[in-house]
């Protein structure tokens, strides 16, 4: 069963057509890199997959569950890292993680949280209020949440934004770990070089839909 099936997704905001008939299928363990110019609708598509938006036309199925009818089940299977950090500024990094994972139904031990924070390189800031974390550190914190959440489908909207070189490497390593563990990853990014390092497949979003690009061709085009 594919982790993600998008069927002819179209989406229109009040007067503006954001997406037209986008279809996609992701198998377990696959990493798909989504490219496209500004305004192509990448974030809209990611939000639809994250169930933040309901597509005006078309349907989305996550681990076999429809994203509208079986919302709760679909949401249990996915994790979304977007542009905003979803952080509560008066809470520490550890507390933010406890809250996020707590809402997913379980309580990681302090050891598990610290391991995840070390993995992403912000172990030293574990007890800092997240107000004092820089944008890059906040991004790493989101990655730590994802690691603990263990989703079947990981959605990353501009995962490399705000990250320094080390951070980007950590991100890619984690993405590879996710794929190896059988989770599907969908990355939307402008950084073709970095995304191509981890992606198995790639595609370009434009106003006619989603066009798959063979990854070898993408790699060749970059060099």
């Amino acid at each position, binding site marked *: 069963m594919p982790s993600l099936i998008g069927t002819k997704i179209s989406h229109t905001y009040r007067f503006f057509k954001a997406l037209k008939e986008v279809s996609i299928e992701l198998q377990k363990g696959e990493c798909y890199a989504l490219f496209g110019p500004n305004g192509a609708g990448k974030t809209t598509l990611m939000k639809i997959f994250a*169930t933040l938006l309901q597509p005006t036309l078309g349907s989305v199925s996550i681990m076999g569950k429809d994203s509208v009818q079986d*919302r709760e089940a679909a949401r249990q299977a996915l994790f*979304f890292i*977007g542009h905003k950090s*979803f952080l*509560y500024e*008066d809470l520490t990094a550890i507390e933010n993680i406890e809250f*996020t994972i707590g809402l997913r*139904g379980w309580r990681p031990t302090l050891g598990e949280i610290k391991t995840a924070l070390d993995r992403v390189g912000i172990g030293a800031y574990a007890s800092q209020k997240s107000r004092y974390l820089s944008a890059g550190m906040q991004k790493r914190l989101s990655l730590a949440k994802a690691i603990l959440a263990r989703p079947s489908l990981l959605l990353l909207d501009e995962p490399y934004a705000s990250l320094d070189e080390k951070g980007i490497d950590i991100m890619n390593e984690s993405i590879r770990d996710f794929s190896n563990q059988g989770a599907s990853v969908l990355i939307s990014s402008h950084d073709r070089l970095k995304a191509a390092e981890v992606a198995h497949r790639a595609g370009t979003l434009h106003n006619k839909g989603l066009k798959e690009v063979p990854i070898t061709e993408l790699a060749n085009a970059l060099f």
Partner: protein
Amino acid sequence: MPFFDVIKWILWKDMLSEIRSRESISSLFFFALNVILIFSFSFSVGQDVMLALMPGLIWVAFGFTSILGLGKSFLSEVHNDCIAYLQIAPVPKGAIYLGKLAGNILLMMVVEIILYPLFMIFFNMDILAKIPSLLIISFLATVGLSALGTLFSILTVQLRAREVMFPLLLLPLSVPVFIGAVEATQGALSGDPYSSYRHWIELLFIFDMIITIVSFWMFEYILDY
């Protein structure tokens, strides 16, 4: 049980944030204090007239303070777009409502408990013996206001005109709370027997039940339109 866990998580998160920043409680407290002070200066009347006006004054002060406090319930969620995470969290949305509601009730009750003694001091009233009944009335009225206010907070928090829309929506619909609270407080302050103002307490209770249940039900639709 996942449902009650969610309520606990939301309550924990809000209370922790509030304890650390002390932002809401101080602004609410000083706002209410200001209202009381202005009343003191505005009405230069005899003690017996003041006693007659007291229930109304108390509830005007608490009412305005509630508008300030409840309107901000979801403001902390809009920052950093946390509300999006609440939307996609695999939890029943009604539990989020109840968690927020509990936090709001707690916050308002703390403010009210601090304010009653101040009312006693500023208006030279001996109401020490009546504090328990006053607190019960306050609790019921606070539940009603918070139930409506929490729902309207999420309806208005992302709007441009939030500060206009929130009181515009809340005040007309909370008329029964104000009527019930003022009448019951009147009865309690005058030392009347409970039976004489019992139906006002019942009104508050019925309002609380109906509005909380309907708001709880409707909340799901708002977060997940």
